[in-house]
């Protein structure tokens, strides 16, 4: 695209002429990331102070120039490529750690801070930042937020999403907003996580930090089969042991790694599990015994505990899986797919079959705890036939994930490379909602365009067949009738006391617990189920949720904003929009980085953006102290809310409650 001279002049005034580059070399050096895509931008803007971002975006908005933010550019899905050309904003120089507050447990950072550098800064203070993406030595915290990055420690500590407290966002029109999780209303910060820079550019982050763990114990366990390995993980969860890492490799990968740099990995085992426990010494002893016992039950071939040196060697061996592949051929495509943990053995077998059928060398690593796996495919990108074959195989692997109820991305994001696959993962209504979100934030489609949302998806999506005998179907019809009256109403739970009955639309008839899954440790229940009903049903199976008992409905708990800590436990959702359409997101997945995080859009939205009809969330084998409710705060209608409300509910039918009505 042509960048007008006046725009360049304005940009040079804003950031200095040496920081605006249009020459061939600079432009071509910003045309790639770690993915297969190469797309040429038109201008590179090096940002040196965070205050420059808003000024630059205002200029780009004024001249309708699309822009993409970039720092480490370690992305595997082409999220920082520029299909429409335009500007690349290089934020890598924003490397200041502005504040470390160990008393309140947070840090204030700029987006260009490298993840590992934050860790180094916190270590002497006795604190750590939990998300640990594999590329943490070079990836930046801004990029982590954009991709909702996570790593080996995700199972216990969660991903970036769970550690961002506040974000300063520059919207695509140049306006600056500070979004905080303390404010009532949808979890905007959560929505930003994994949005791949399509909703704006973050210039400052407030992140949660944790006190350093007392002790870490590392174990290397080998199994005959993948099934035994995954069963061990399930059994450990059942016993209430949540290790901080559970990294696994299949036999072929172990053999390749051992050939390159022997580290004492068991080459004859069907699966090798690298497990780490952390915590206080007293608890660790108990947990270690349980791990040992569970491994024995599941026919573990060997169980070895490491000293410090050996642990480093094993972790090095795990990292060597990538190095081994990188030395076999010029390029390595790191795929990323996630399935419910129970589906992991079958999916991995299918993936191996696909690789063998297509004669592709690959290692297969997986985070056994959360069903996330990374086949690393070796190829030479200079060979177009090989490249096409690799792309085809990568798609086949992702299709296998989808068939197993999984997602096309657990932590790498969608970018340009996987966006066509989203049409196979979500129905049209869900993708429409993604488009609405994007349009609300960025009506001119300037921020990182052509990402996430598939092109012409209406023709490609596979619409879910309506089950007319289903309670949800009846409820949807009733909701449509209500909408047809075009009279404003409140969404309520079972116990709402309202002045006028006409203004009330209750979810109380949705009172079924549809699934309690003791393999993946999830429960799926409809929005009208009360907390007491839920607790009783779970107790029968010897499991617990983090919610207290009471008369409140599940939908109310999720939407009212009174239980913000509950959001981290929710993994899937079904909701009806003010248009009458039905959206589905997530499922029994611990990780999902495909598309906008709809869980966080509806969480705390107080029923104003749609009706949550069904939720899937985590359950536990051990009873933990239940969450306590915070006071109800009426929703704050900030600019973002108004825009989204206008997109989803232009007639303003779903009213904003002034008091807690959705209990």
């Amino acid at each position: 695209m042509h960048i007008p001279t006046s725009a360049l002049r304005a940009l040079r005034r804003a950031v200095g002429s040496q920081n605006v580059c249009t020459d061939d070399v600079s432009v071509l050096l910003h045309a790639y990331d770690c993915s297969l895509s190469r797309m040429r931008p038109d201008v590179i803007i090096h940002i040196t102070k965070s205050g420059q971002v808003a000024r630059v975006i205002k200029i780009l908005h004024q001249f309708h120039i699309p822009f993409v933010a970039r720092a480490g550019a370690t992305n595997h899905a082409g999220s920082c490529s520029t299909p429409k050309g335009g500007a690349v904003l290089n934020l890598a120089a924003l490397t200041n750690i502005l504040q470390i507050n160990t008393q309140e447990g947070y840090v204030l950072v700029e987006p260009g801070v490298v993840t590992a550098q934050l860790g180094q800064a916190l270590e002497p203070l006795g604190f750590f930042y939990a998300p640990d993406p594999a590329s943490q030595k070079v990836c930046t915290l801004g990029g982590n937020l954009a991709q909702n990055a996570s790593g080996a420690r995700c199972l216990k500590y969660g991903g970036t999403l769970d550690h961002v407290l506040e974000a300063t966002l520059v919207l695509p029109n140049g306006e600056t907003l500070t979004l905080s999780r303390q404010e009532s209303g949808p979890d905007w910060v959560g929505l930003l996580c994994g949005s791949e820079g399509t909703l704006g550019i973050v210039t400052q982050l407030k992140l949660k930090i944790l006190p350093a763990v007392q002790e870490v114990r590392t174990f290397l366990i080998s199994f005959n089969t993948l099934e035994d390995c995954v069963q061990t993980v399930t059994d450990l969860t059942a016993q209430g042991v949540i290790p901080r890492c559970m990294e696994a490799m299949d036999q072929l990968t172990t053999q390749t790694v051992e050939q390159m740099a022997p580290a004492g990995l068991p080459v004859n085992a069907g699966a090798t599990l690298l497990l780490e426990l952390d915590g206080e010494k007293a608890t660790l002893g108990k947990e270690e015994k349980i791990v040992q016992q569970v491994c024995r039950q599941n026919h573990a071939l060997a169980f070895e505990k490491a000293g410090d040196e050996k642990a480093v060697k094993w972790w090095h061996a795990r990292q060597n899986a990538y190095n081994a592949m990188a030395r076999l051929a010029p390029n390595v495509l790191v795929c990323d797919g996630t399935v419910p943990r129970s589906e992991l053995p079958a999916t991995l077998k299918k993936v191996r079959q696909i690789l063998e059928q297509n004669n592709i060398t690959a290692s297969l690593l997986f985070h056994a705890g959360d069903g996330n796996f990374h086949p690393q495919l070796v190829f030479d990108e200079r060979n177009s036939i090989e490249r096409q074959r690799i792309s085809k195989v990568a798609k086949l692997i992702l299709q296998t994930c989808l068939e197993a109820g999984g997602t096309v991305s657990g932590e790498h994001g969608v970018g340009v490379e996987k966006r066509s696959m989203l049409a196979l993962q979500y129905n049209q209504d869900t993708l429409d909602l993604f488009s609405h979100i994007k349009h609300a934030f960025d009506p001119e489609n300037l921020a990182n365009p052509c990402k996430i949302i598939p092109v012409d998806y209406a023709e490609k999506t596979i619409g879910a067949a309506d089950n007319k005998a289903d309670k949800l179907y009846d409820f949807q019809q009733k909701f449509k009738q209500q909408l047809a009256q075009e009279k404003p109403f409140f969404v309520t739970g079972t116990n709402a006391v309202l002045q006028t009955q006409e203004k009330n639309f209750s979810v109380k008839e949705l009172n079924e617990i549809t699934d309690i899954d003791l393999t993946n440790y999830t429960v799926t229940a409809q929005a009208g189920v009360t907390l007491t009903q839920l607790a009783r049903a779970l107790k029968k199976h010897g499991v617990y949720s983090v919610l207290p008992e009471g008369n409140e409905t599940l939908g109310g708990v999720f939407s009212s904003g009174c239980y913000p800590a509950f959001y981290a436990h929710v993994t899937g959702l079904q909701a009806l929009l003010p248009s009458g359409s039905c959206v589905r997101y997530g499922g029994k997945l611990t990780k999902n980085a495909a598309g906008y995080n709809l869980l966080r859009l509806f969480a705390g939205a107080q029923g104003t953006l749609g009706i949550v009809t069904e939720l899937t969330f985590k359950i536990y084998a051990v009873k933990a102290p239940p969450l306590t409710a915070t006071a109800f705060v009426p929703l704050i209608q900030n600019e973002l809310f108004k825009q989204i409300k206008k997109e989803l509910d232009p007639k303003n039918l779903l009213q904003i409650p002034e008091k807690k009505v959705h209990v």
Partner: protein
Amino acid sequence: MFNDPCLEPLFPRKHLSELQTALGTKTLYNSVCACNRCGVCAAVCPTYQLYHQENFSPRGRNQILRLCLEGKIKLNKKNRVLHEALVSCTLCGRCNEVCAAQVPTAQHVLEMRRALGLRVLPRLLQRFLQLRDNKPRLFNVLARTSLILRRLWVVKIAWLLQITHLPGLTWINHLDDILPARIIPLAKVLANANVQANQENPQLIYLPSLEAEFILPDIALDTLRLAQKKYRTETWQNTTTGLFPYVYGDLRQSRKMLRKLLARHAKTGNGKLPLLTDSIDVYLFLKRAPQLFSGRKLWQKRAQNLAQNLLFVTDIFPVNTDDKTTQNPGPVQLEYSALFERQGPAFEKAEKILAILFGKNFVKCFYTDADTPAFGYTFVAPKNATRMSLKTVEKIARSQTKQVVTLSGLAALELAYALKKFYPAAQATHFVHVNR
């Protein structure tokens, strides 16, 4: 399978036809295409850490070469961005160390510099140093004359008259700053210490580096003392290796110098004598020497023979657990400043020896810690070099290190100057002086 494009097909001898990489011999194109663009190298690259721009990252430099080979970027000497990206590289090889595919970015940068004919040292300094290769006698005379003039305060007067502030002459000030106040000729130093440079029936050849021969004769003295404890030694003074033209000049010139050295080595003791050097830069260059002669079997064989018989001062350093220093010297660090790589047997041996000698006082460095830029970088990009040296001093001060051990005399000179300026509590010394 693929056509292997060359940077300058009309001048193949100006370039290495094959690179000797950690994963075997590769053509330039195959070597650069092994970069998977993962970007891990940026975390350790000293220039990327200064600028945070892709142009200054190893990944960016590799992509520039690839795009040049594929004809997507034209090699143009006047292209400022291209020039900056290539000249700014310190050739330290840290990127190679962390790279999963062991891509030799420093070698790639040198190839591009050769294609562009980049003159990276100040012209006068380059001409002066070239004399050592072409006209060693004249170089000796000029070097001594310059030192006499320096002792006569000529440089200070030139500085006062602002002559050395003129473009192209500013390097003189820096050179004056880093050089020791008084430089004693090597012959005199050896005579005073009653050390013979050449012994009969030699078992080892000592090849003093430029700095050991002309600036820091103590390095040559201590190296000879160490060597002569075990071997009868012959010293090859006024012998060039071809390292200078390899980095800053013409590869053909470098090959010529190297051939002279190889021929002399082949003649002396049937080419079986070990060759000792006191400079890590020379050591690493000679280890890579065979790649300069791909396709020329005789010379390649000789270069391989030399590489096999090459010794660094760490190889002859007598050390056992009893040698542990009884005095408490305070924290000691090893400085990894070198050309082409920051890991390998020489570094490991140095670490081991220091760990034995200083025990807990030996402070290990982190992989991202800064190093002093090596081999003349301060004259190539003085601003970058100052910022990098400051970061190095910061690292040293953070651990309250008292002594920093370098593996080359030039690095010791640069670091000693930076320490004197910003952290005088620490001192920089060459490895051979450690147990003096």
